[in-house]
């Protein structure tokens, strides 16, 4: 009797303690009831979840600092209608459970106005299913994944894609192969999940025939497994090989192929094509030399580009000693577009006015990309195209023939066409009105 009672008592008191804790721990609402969540007189609070540590973090963990660098630049120049933009960063270690937990903290505890540039397909799917920002009316701006599904407004009403989808990338790559490597034996290495199957469906609809396809399970990529890929590709005599995976897979494939003296014409997908990350993984720059890569932003070494040179100077001051690579450029560009969306949302932005502003004015937002944004009431698709180039002997991606040729398409059955769009001049000092 005694012991059982005590056991219950302990459980009960534990529960009571938790009750007391939680009751006192609820923060008083810091915002006056009139103003929107995440917006005070002096501040606009945004949040991001992404892998800052863990196996998937290399390269991507530079994004928050890059975004903050640009926000701080705007803040130092008057902010957004007098308010400072702050970014709350949460590390989800690329685990969906963590992404859900951290997003809940961002929305319910930190009370951010919107989520910006959250990374990862599986993570964003879990967040959409559990946290359900769509139902809460919380904007999920510019998700850092090319999974074509996120542009589906029915399923993800408040989510905006920004990267061209993997389907688009595959279709455009197919066109490039037709133009440049007709008649060659083609091989493909892809990640065996939505990321890869999205691409596979793109290649299929473009009619590309592969002599060998190697799907790898996410997380299995290593020098050892890559030896398997290379052996298969070699056996099929592939002389053009597309590496459509994350950076670590690209690096493993390139490094191992070099060790096996296998040197086909490489074509690297944009996700895993960041030269700095590949080189940091131990692949000599020489191996990257002459590989084909794709991007929708200007080359990171193209200092004649007004955006690149401004972003570079802002970043090098904010994060001294850190290389200005494609992840940084993507991050700063997202921040740049975010600031315009906030400004377009009116003097006292709300979640609703932010969403409405992107729907109505998003297609006119300036950005560093060489393609327009495609936002409207009926489209949450961001960029829709790529240019191709080759990696220089030092491992920098440079456009073919020194000038950018942009191909564009859609995630459906639309044709691939060359873009004639001209990017407007950058707003003065990189500060949009």
């Amino acid at each position, binding site marked *: 009797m005694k012991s059982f009672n005590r056991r219950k008592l302990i459980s009960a008191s534990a529960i009571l303690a938790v009750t007391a804790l939680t009751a006192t721990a609820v923060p008083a609402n810091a915002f006056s009831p009139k103003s929107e969540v995440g917006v005070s007189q002096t501040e606009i609070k945004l949040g991001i979840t992404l892998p800052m540590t863990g196996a998937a973090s290399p390269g991507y963990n530079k994004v928050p600092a890059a975004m903050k660098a640009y926000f701080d630049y705007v803040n130092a120049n008057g902010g957004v209608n007098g308010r400072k933009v702050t970014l709350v960063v949460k590390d989800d270690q690329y685990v969906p459970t963590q992404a859900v937990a951290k997003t809940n903290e961002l929305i319910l505890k930190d009370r951010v106005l919107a989520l910006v540039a959250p990374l990862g397909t*599986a993570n964003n799917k879990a967040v959409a299913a559990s946290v359900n920002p769509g139902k809460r009316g919380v904007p999920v701006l510019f998700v850092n994944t090319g999974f074509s599904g996120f542009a589906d407004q029915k399923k993800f009403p408040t989510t905006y894609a920004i990267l061209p989808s993997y389907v688009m990338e595959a279709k455009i790559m197919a066109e490039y192969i037709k133009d440049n490597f007709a008649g060659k034996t083609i091989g493909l290495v892809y990640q065996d999940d939505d990321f890869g199957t999205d691409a596979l469906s793109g290649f299929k609809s473009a009619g590309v025939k592969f002599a060998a396809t190697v799907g790898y399970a996410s997380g299995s990529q290593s020098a050892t497994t890559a030896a398997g890929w290379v052996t298969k590709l070699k056996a099929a005599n592939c002389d053009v090989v597309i590496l459509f995976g994350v950076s670590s897979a690209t690096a493993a494939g390139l490094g191992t192929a070099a060790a096996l003296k296998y040197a086909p014409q490489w074509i690297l997908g944009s996700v895993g094509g960041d030269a700095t990350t590949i080189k940091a993984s131990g692949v000599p720059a020489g191996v990257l030399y002459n590989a084909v890569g794709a991007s929708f932003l200007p080359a990171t070494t193209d200092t004649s580009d007004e955006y690149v040179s401004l972003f570079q100077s802002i970043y090098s001051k904010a994060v001294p000693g850190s290389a200005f690579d494609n992840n940084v450029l993507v991050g700063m560009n997202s921040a740049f577009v975010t600031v315009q969306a906030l400004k377009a949302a009116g003097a006292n932005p709300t979640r609703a006015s932010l969403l409405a502003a992107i729907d109505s004015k998003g297609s006119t937002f300036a950005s560093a990309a060489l393609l327009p944004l495609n936002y409207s009431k009926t489209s949450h698709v961001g960029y829709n195209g790529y240019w191709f180039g080759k990696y220089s002997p030092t491992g920098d991606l440079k456009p073919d023939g020194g000038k950018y040729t942009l191909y564009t398409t859609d995630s459906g059955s639309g044709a691939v066409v060359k873009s004639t769009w001209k990017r407007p001049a950058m707003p003065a000092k990189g500060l949009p009105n």
Partner: protein
Amino acid sequence: MHKLSNKVRILIFIVIGFAIYLLSNNVDELRVYQGAQVAVYVVGIASIILLTGYSGQVSLGQGALLGVGGYAAALSQLKWHLPIPATFAIAILAAAGAGALLGIAAARLSGPYLAGATLALAVGLPSIANQFTVLGGEQGLFFDVGFPPSSLGADFTQYKWFFWIASLATLLAIFWLQNVMRSRYGRTWKAIRGSEVAAELAGVNVARAKILAFTLSAGVAGLAGALLAMTIGTVSPSAFPLALSFSLLTGAVLAGVTTLGGVIIGAVTLVAIPEIVGSIVNRAGASEAIASNLPHIVVGALLILTVVFVPNGPVEQMRSRRLKNGTSL
């Protein structure tokens, strides 16, 4: 030792249930969500207590069994459109089946061998999802228990609904577990844990008892997996990482593996430590890398300290101290 009658126990559980109901109405949504997390951990930890505390076997791969449960629930909903309670039942059965298989293997092993085998399982099993397209690959599958019924009111949140479901399932599971542990089987397991040889001499079929423990424990783990899948809305290999198995084991050790009484302590600790450490770190202005790694260090250190100084858990410790002092409540 006197035991409470079933009637009194049912009354106690109803009171706890009512307390949880009141709690859910008086805290904000984040706490309700964390409450659902705590409930998931309570069930997961209880499954380990049944296994380790009562039959002396150790599993470092409980997360994999949660995965089996989560996938079973999601699949049965996607393929057969079963109602939610039925998906939970499928989750329990599927995981129990996996547990029985594992138990057959485990009955031949003990100590480090079993630990290593279950560890290998925890690392290996989730990747199976990549092998079969029906399991959705790395992106996994959706698992949607639906919106709360409209009769509960328009401002009844999704997480409150999760919390209610999870709490109810947890209370039922714990009640049932107590029954099992008070039964003949519970005593048999305790005898085995005490001394396998002695139990065998007393006529206990040790292998069969161990397999049964593994099966029941896995079934409970399967329920935890379905509840976890519910709270995150999806199942995917990365939702059941090795870290999950370690967390549950940590929670069980912190709770004390010999009694269900402390299970809430383990679960609350697992949810609270990252938040407490995180807010301290944030207040100190340290980086996100510290905020996300310091909890690991704290939890790991707590685990070591508990094993060394309070190996039977805080509840048992207090109880034995009281017994020693001869005081009564």
